[in-house]
């Protein structure tokens, strides 16, 4: 008997399910960043808004990376339903706190995926996830650095102005330089 199944199904069901969940999570993050961008934009924090718009785009790219992986593997990719995002924040710092929280949740989720791949012996997906593991190190780093600006500069009007000035320069490679 031919091994037709193997030719057409590369991923295990659990792996397909967890990737679909991640597609949803990335879509939700993208929407959440959009809400943060809007909050910043209407309050005149233009650079912070731009920062979050960029984050939103990035999350969308992550979503598509996972989605295309499923499609490429001939698996069912589910276009996600996205729920409500948080639109109200107490102050600028709260927005960045929320962003870091979100990134930590994504990191945990990616690590769970790697663990599942190891458990079921899916070496290919584990390899595919490597990029995301690295990406999350960077995302979390950037989020932390942003919050540190508040710690260092404070939160008065002048400080917020300085944060607004510097926010777009926060990058991961700053770690090496």
């Amino acid at each position, binding site marked *: 008997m*031919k091994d037709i199944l193997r030719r057409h199904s590369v991923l295990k069901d659990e792996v397909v399910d967890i990737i679909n969940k991640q597609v949803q999570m990335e879509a939700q993050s993208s929407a959440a960043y959009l809400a943060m961008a809007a909050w910043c934009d209407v309050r005149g924090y233009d650079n912070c808004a731009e920062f979050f718009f960029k984050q939103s785009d990035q999350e969308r790219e992550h979503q598509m990376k996972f989605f295309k992986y499923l499609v490429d593997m001939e698996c069912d990719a589910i276009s996600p339903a996205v729920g409500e995002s948080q639109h109200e924040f107490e102050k600028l710092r709260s927005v960045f706190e929320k962003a870091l929280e979100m990134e930590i949740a994504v990191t945990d989720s990616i690590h769970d995926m790697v663990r599942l791949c190891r458990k079921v012996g899916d070496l290919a997906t584990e390899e595919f996830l490597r990029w995301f593991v690295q990406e999350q190190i960077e995302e979390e780093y950037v989020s932390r650095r942003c919050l540190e600006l508040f710690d260092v500069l404070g939160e008065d009007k002048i400080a917020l102005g300085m944060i607004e000035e510097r926010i777009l320069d926060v990058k991961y490679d700053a770690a090496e330089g």
Partner: protein
Amino acid sequence: MSQVTSDSQQLLFETSHSSLHQCDELERYILQFKGDSIHFRACELITFKRKVQKIDLVKLLDSETPDVEIVHMPHCDRIFAFTIEDVLELKELFAGAFTMLELNSMIHRQLVRRPF
């Protein structure tokens, strides 16, 4: 139960009212269910199996909701209304058939595809 007879068709698993065959020649799977015969490509079969597996039996037993599950099969554009018994039978069929398919994959991996 088994009504499919051809050299290139192999029975994977059967239950009292259903069976699943693999046809090597067409590279299709054939589901016999309550007198119906439905052909599937591998990915269609996997999709259908996942749909059946995800049907929540407890919810189906809940008297508030109708105790049939509507399942659409886009590849043949048919809609089925499965009763609880149907769902149980299909779940059993797929559990058995996929165990056989995985076993077959293991044999291929260990013996057939191995060059030396």
